[in-house]
């Protein structure tokens, strides 16, 4: 084959725009008459709104619309319709917007916000997720039972529990009886923020004729359109959602966020476009964040290393609104074991409302949180039965043929976690003699495995349109957004390979626009390359079919003898029977001038296969389109004086099925590792006793900088192709970030002999654990 792009490090197709500053993001767009929004935010965590006086603000010259919650009673929410765009009746978290002003300039809007007077009556708050579950806890949503919600969400009326996911497999009590050793531990992860470099940005326009135009930094344009339509009660075709480049999403820009607010402001301002750019501070406490997490896990194993039973109790601090949280609760619930076969399982995974900022998706969709718990538990249980943690993992690994928690028998082509574990063991030199102390610092190694499948409705679909242009080039339209993950580049490679044409002649449309773009469910769940890939391959097949049909007539050759390559349709071995694609793009022409065929527009789709609903009582069923398995290994250095932890080396192996673009793949892996290190060692929301976030800026909430990255990062791709995937690929966007925390925690134990159960493992926490260990020794 002349053109081969599979497995090549093709530079990303959007790189030129991005290195020259010409790539446009929502915040770079300007429209005539555009107004600027500022928000008045609640200073209280839980309070009744007694009165709002906007009189003074409205009088300020240049103010075009002031909106308060009472005027916007619409309920939004992807799985649970629990959220209004402005607090109405009461505020549920510090930072929740209470009023919004649209004005000629940001300065005027800001001044107007200062003129709004709000009278509150403070209520007792639910600031601790476990206490929020108790009887008599202050209710965050008194009317939860009236909320519209997805059928697979199980709220508990009269409590703060927004979803209770249950999984029951085998007989867990019998399993514990069969065990020689049973251990039980608690784990905790705080709320954190996605910290996309681009804050949430939306421009909305609601014209008097009912047309709604939106430009927004959203991951999923069709989800925005759908949720807005349902929430506002506006017909779908009246809404057009445009998504330019996204400055990072990591789940936090999935679904609907502030689009309804700018649209409602626009309506009040007579249809002028209204822009809202979240400040960094608002990004931390007004918009969506990652849920907090508490786990209690009980696991039993036989002395020979076989796990007999696991009881998993997961509690998610959803904050004030459920958003994606209820589905994260579910996804973590059905994946609760991690990549292991356990015969007897009980899992209860609960979303609990609190008066914290509202939780949403963040790269990994709950998996980094629960893998911290399960992969720590694996090490602790191995230690309890006196077995090497690698051997223990391999013994229980969910390899093909074994049964998952939901009763799925893993297919032969499901991917191999055991190969990932072995690759990482090799890469970090597990079990090899290494110095325990280097320059007064303690060194250690740790390993953690992982798995994750896309969490999505069973009939999720994607589509693609491939247009043949008049010069023989092609233009691919898809609706998976480009937020840095590089899916469009991978798809361009697939198209060029399939059509056997230079990739330079394949264009992928960068802007997404629901009026023109083909439908896709969402840009989430590490599903893009798999699902848009299958849809794209289908569109290529359809385009080929169309050009062959016309060419068969023109060349007088049966269609089945025709091939498409090098921008031509031709019969193999017959150079006279050949026609350029360019001559078929608008219509074919017979020698006498008659036309045949028409403009060529390839259409393709893919719908997730073989997924089923899960049983509401037992969680049994088929939730996974594909499992991506992986393992991560850390080598760390602990400073015994300060508690400072430095990651020396991080090795990662994932069974990605097939590497389409190793250059971009490496970027996903390195990026995920460093994001995970931030969460493992430094990131955490710190609240005061009344629920106010104290570190809502990047001075006090640190993320990794260049100086914080490991000395060495190793990535080992494992390639066992998935049968129903385009070229065998599996998703990888989220996975490199999943088992960083437990790998580091396990390495810290190896280095310093301390067991950590809470994230982040910052200096203070590590130092305290080291001191405690010292004390024990002193009194022993």
């Amino acid at each position, binding site marked *: 084959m002349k053109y081969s792009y599979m497995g090549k490090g093709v530079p990303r197709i*959007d790189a*030129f725009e991005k*290195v020259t500053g010409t*790539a446009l993001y929502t*915040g770079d767009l300007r429209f005539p008459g555009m107004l600027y929004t500022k928000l008045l935010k609640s200073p209280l965590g839980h309070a009744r709104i007694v009165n709002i006086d906007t009189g003074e603000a409205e009088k300020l010259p240049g103010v075009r619309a002031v909106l308060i919650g009472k005027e916007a009673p619409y309920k939004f929410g992807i799985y649970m319709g629990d959220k209004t765009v402005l607090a109405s009746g009461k505020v549920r978290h510090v930072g929740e917007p209470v009023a919004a002003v649209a004005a000629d300039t940001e300065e005027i809007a800001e001044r107007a916000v200062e003129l709004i007077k709000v009278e509150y009556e403070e209520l007792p708050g639910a600031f601790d997720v476990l206490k929020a579950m108790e009887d008599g806890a202050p209710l965050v949503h008194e009317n939860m039972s009236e909320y519209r919600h997805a059928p697979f969400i199980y709220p508990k009326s009269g409590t703060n529990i927004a979803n209770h996911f249950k999984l029951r497999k085998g007989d867990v009590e019998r399993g514990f009886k069969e065990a020689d050793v049973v251990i039980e531990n608690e784990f905790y992860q705080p709320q954190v923020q996605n910290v996309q470099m681009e804050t949430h940005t939306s421009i909305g326009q609601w014209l008097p004729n009912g047309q709604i135009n939106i430009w927004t930094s959203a991951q999923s344009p069709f989800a925005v359109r759908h949720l807005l339509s349902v929430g506002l009660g506006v017909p779908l075709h009246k809404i057009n959602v445009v998504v330019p480049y996204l400055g990072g*999403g990591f789940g936090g820009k999935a679904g609907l966020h502030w689009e309804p607010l700018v649209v409602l402001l626009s309506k009040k301002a007579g249809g002028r476009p209204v822009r809202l750019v979240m400040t*960094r501070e608002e990004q931390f406490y007004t918009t969506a964040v990652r849920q907090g997490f508490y786990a209690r896990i009980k696991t039993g194993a036989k002395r020979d290393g076989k796990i007999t039973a696991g009881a998993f109790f997961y509690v998610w601090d959803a904050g004030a609104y459920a958003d994606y949280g209820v589905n994260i609760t579910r996804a973590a619930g059905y994946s609760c074991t991690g990549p292991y076969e356990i015969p007897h399982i009980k899992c209860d995974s609960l979303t609990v409302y609190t008066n914290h900022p509202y939780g949403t998706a963040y790269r990994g969709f709950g998996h980094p949180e629960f893998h911290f718990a399960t992969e720590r538990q694996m090490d602790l249980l191995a230690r309890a039965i006196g077995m090497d943690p690698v051997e223990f993992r391999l013994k229980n690994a969910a390899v093909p043929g074994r049964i998952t928690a939901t009763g799925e028998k893993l297919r032969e082509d499901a991917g191999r976690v055991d190969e990932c574990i072995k690759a990482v063991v090799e890469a970090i030199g597990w079990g090899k003699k290494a110095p325990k102390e280097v320059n007064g610092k303690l060194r250690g190694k740790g390993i953690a495995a992982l798995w994750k499948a896309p969490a999505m409705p069973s009939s999720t679909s994607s589509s693609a349109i491939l247009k043949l242009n008049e010069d023989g080039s092609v233009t691919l339209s898809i609706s998976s957004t480009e937020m840095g993950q590089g899916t469009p580049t991978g798809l361009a490679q697939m198209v060029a390979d399939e059509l056997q044409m230079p990739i330079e002649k394949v264009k992928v449309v960068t802007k997404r626009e629901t009026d023109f773009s083909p439908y896709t469910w969402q840009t989430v769940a590490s599903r893009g390359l798999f699902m848009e890939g299958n849809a794209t391959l289908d569109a290529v097949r359809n385009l080929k079919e169309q050009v062959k049909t016309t060419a068969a007539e023109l060349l007088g050759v049966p269609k089945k003898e025709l091939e498409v390559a090098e921008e031509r349709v031709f019969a193999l071995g017959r150079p006279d029977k050949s026609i350029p694609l360019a001559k078929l793009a608008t219509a074919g022409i017979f020698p006498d001038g008659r036309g045949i065929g028409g403009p060529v527009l390839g259409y393709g789709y893919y719908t997730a296969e073989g997924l089923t609903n899960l049983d509401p009582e037992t969680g049994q069923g088929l939730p996974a389109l594909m499992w991506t398995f992986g393992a991560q290994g850390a080598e760390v250095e602990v400073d015994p004086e300060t508690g400072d932890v430095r990651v020396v080396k991080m090795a990662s192996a994932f069974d990605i099925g097939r590497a389409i673009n190793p250059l971009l793949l490496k970027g996903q892996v390195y990026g995920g590792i460093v*994001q995970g290190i931030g969460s493992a060692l430094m990131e955490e929301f710190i609240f005061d006793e009344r629920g106010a976030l104290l570190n809502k800026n*990047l001075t006090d909430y640190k993320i*990794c900088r260049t100086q914080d990255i490991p000395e060495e990062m190793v990535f080992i791709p494992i390639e066992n192709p998935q049968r129903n995937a385009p070229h065998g690929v599996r998703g990888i966007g989220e996975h490199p970030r999943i088992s960083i925390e437990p790998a580091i925690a396990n390495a810290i134990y190896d280095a310093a002999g301390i067991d950590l159960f809470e994230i982040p493992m910052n200096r203070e926490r590590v130092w305290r654990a080291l001191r405690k260990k010292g004390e024990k020794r002193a009194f022993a």
Partner: protein
Amino acid sequence: MSKHKISVRANGQLYERDVEPRRTLLQFIREDLGLTGTKCACERGDCGLCTVLVDGVPTKSCLVLAVEVDGKEITTIEGLMEGEELNPVQRAFIEHGAVQCGFCTPAFIVAGGALLKRNPSPTEEEVKEAVGGILCRCTGYRQIIDAILDASKGAKK
């Protein structure tokens, strides 16, 4: 608020504008000059995404007032191409996969280029130091560091 007339050369072009004294250089660049390649992501000097060159020196433009750059020369990402060609740092960013969402990319390219002008053969530590004030949430920095090193004189071509 009374305005001040300032005269600035940005990417080789002369601009004269009346600005309020409180206007930041970042606002001036993005809103008044329409050079939106420079990004705003925290407005308090934490993230470095607004980095531009002021008389050749990398500067966080959210921490400088527009009136302070009167008579000075500003270089932004839009002014870095060499004619119709990408400069070596831009090229290296593409080749190394140092770009993902692209929101921080302009700042890294501006700061990386300034480093190489000052120090044509930096060590890895010097590169980390020079761009250490700029945040990226996508890449994990490895490929950014590699790209800048590769664009330097010291790199084996």
